């Protein structure tokens, strides 16, 4: 398998799409950091670039990984070079793990490019240093890696059995977008208050009446079994995990953040996605 990993990594470092993704992520982080910094000067509100933006990129990282994985694995199919690997006496399991490890490494490097841009902005004097404890930040980065790896494992499990670059791309991007939308919707329901205040009627002079505020049950709020299901799905989806990390950093709540649970879910997903993908890939007829 070492031979395959070596071959796949050298191909990754020759891959234009990988460099485009690196530059895009670096540039995008720099762009949002700088624009938000100048906005903060104009509107006199406080932003803290390293803490506020370090993990923002996790919100769309799934789409980037989907594209990169489809391009990288799909090339082996579109060029037929996966046949060379099999004919050379490599087992399918070795091919699978080699592609998976390369995908994970690429995904992590791409996210590191985003973080590098944020840190560079901070070093260049755009607002203050980290407000969170730097040791917590480093620890969070290590917690983040399995969640990013879970994305890579998911798209590897899709792309290797699909065996078509264009089909992988469509399925991967649609799935990544679907996950973003699902997580947003779940977050909306899970963070909704149980009761919401009714609108207050003001007097003809514009004053609020001297009565107690009235509340009603919030229809967006979910409870019971439904809430448990929503929470479980949210926890399972890699975006959900990444969103939690991001919020914990932004709201300086890393001390309350359950990193172990996060990592447990992420590693569980990697195992499940890889087992499923490997099972289908090992049964697949390759043309």
């Amino acid at each position: 398998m070492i031979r395959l990993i070596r071959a796949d990594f050298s191909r990754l470092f020759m891959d234009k799409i990988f460099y485009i993704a690196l530059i895009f992520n670096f540039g995008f982080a720099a762009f949002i950091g700088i624009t938000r910094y100048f906005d903060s000067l104009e509107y006199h509100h406080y932003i803290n670039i390293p803490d506020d933006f370090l993990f923002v990129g996790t919100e769309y990282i799934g789409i980037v990984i989907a594209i990169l994985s489809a391009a990288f694995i799909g090339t082996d199919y579109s060029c037929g070079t996966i046949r060379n690997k099999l004919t050379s006496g490599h087992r399918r399991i070795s091919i699978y793990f080699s592609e998976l490890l390369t995908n994970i490494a690429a995904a992590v490097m791409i996210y590191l490019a985003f973080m590098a841009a944020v840190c560079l902005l901070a070093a260049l004097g755009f607002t203050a240093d980290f407000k969170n404890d730097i040791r917590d930040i480093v620890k969070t980065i290590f917690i983040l890696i399995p969640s990013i790896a879970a994305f890579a494992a998911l798209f590897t499990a899709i792309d290797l059995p699909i065996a078509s670059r264009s089909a992988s791309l469509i399925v991967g991007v649609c799935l990544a977008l679907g996950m973003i939308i699902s997580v947003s919707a779940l977050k909306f329901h899970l963070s909704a208050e149980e009761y919401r205040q009714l609108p207050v009627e003001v007097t003809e002079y514009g004053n609020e009446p001297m009565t107690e505020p009235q509340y009603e049950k919030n229809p967006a709020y979910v409870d019971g079994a439904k809430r448990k299901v929503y929470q479980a799905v949210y926890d399972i989806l890699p975006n959900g995990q990444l969103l939690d990390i991001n919020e914990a950093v932004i709201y300086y709540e890393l001390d309350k953040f359950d990193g172990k649970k996060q990592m447990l879910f992420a590693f569980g997903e990697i195992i499940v996605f890889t087992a499923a993908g490997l099972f289908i890939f090992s049964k697949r007829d390759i043309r």
Partner: protein
Amino acid sequence: MEYVLETMSLCKSYRHFKALNGLDMHIPKGAIYGFVGKNGAGKTTLIRLICGLQPPTSGEFTLYGAKNTCGDIYKARRRVGAVIETPSVYLSMTARENLKQQYRVLGLPDFNGIDELLTLVGLSDTGRKKVKNFSLGMRQRLGIAIALCGDPDMLILDEPTNGLDPQGIIEIRELILDLNQKRGITVLISSHILDELSRLATHYGFIDNGRLVKEISAQELETLCRKCARVTVSDISALALILDKTGLEYKILDNKTADIYAHPNITKLTLALADVGCELLGFEERNESLESFFISLVGGERQ
């Protein structure tokens, strides 16, 4: 005889379609084995099975003595290089980068030998040109070069001359002959360009509907396809007597027909036969080619 590849009742089904239906095949070491069959006969399916791209539905094969069901098959496959249908090359890389990539896949310790391979397939002057800008013939030759990485003992070529111009076909043919004769590489070559195959093959396997209908050496085929004159006479013993006297080689087919493996003088033969009271009822020059042999084996349907 030592066989590099043997298949035993090999079957492969795709849903209800049987692409291979109990195929038995034997490829001797050092042979150029011409694998002949119509489109859809099962040639590429067999190659895919041997190369591990697909598992057989039933039956088995041995490659360099390793059964397909044993772990040793992976080791045996390392002795094989293959070009299946289209050349498997990275289009965004140069010829040299492609070879380096295959060297890495094979785990070869250094890149020595790449220059030699590029020269061998006539791609040494392609420089930084990307494979996407190569002609089909160049890609085909690069595919063969990739298959040759790591000095394989066996080369599997699936329709290697497909889409090539006449010059390209000649180059590939000479390359295959060179590899077989100088390096002793066993070659399995599937094709339906029979004329081209007849210039290369030392052995033939004819496949039809997923079954190997005939396996034959080129020598045996030559004997079967020898030029001859088929004569029909009223008295076969009279003909045999005359032919024995003239010293011509012949073969009696039935009590009226014989094949004469020479070009007899018809006038002299007719007169000699008339002298002994035998009539010449028919005379036909026969020159059976590989193509007609194949058609006689699998039936006259068009490919």
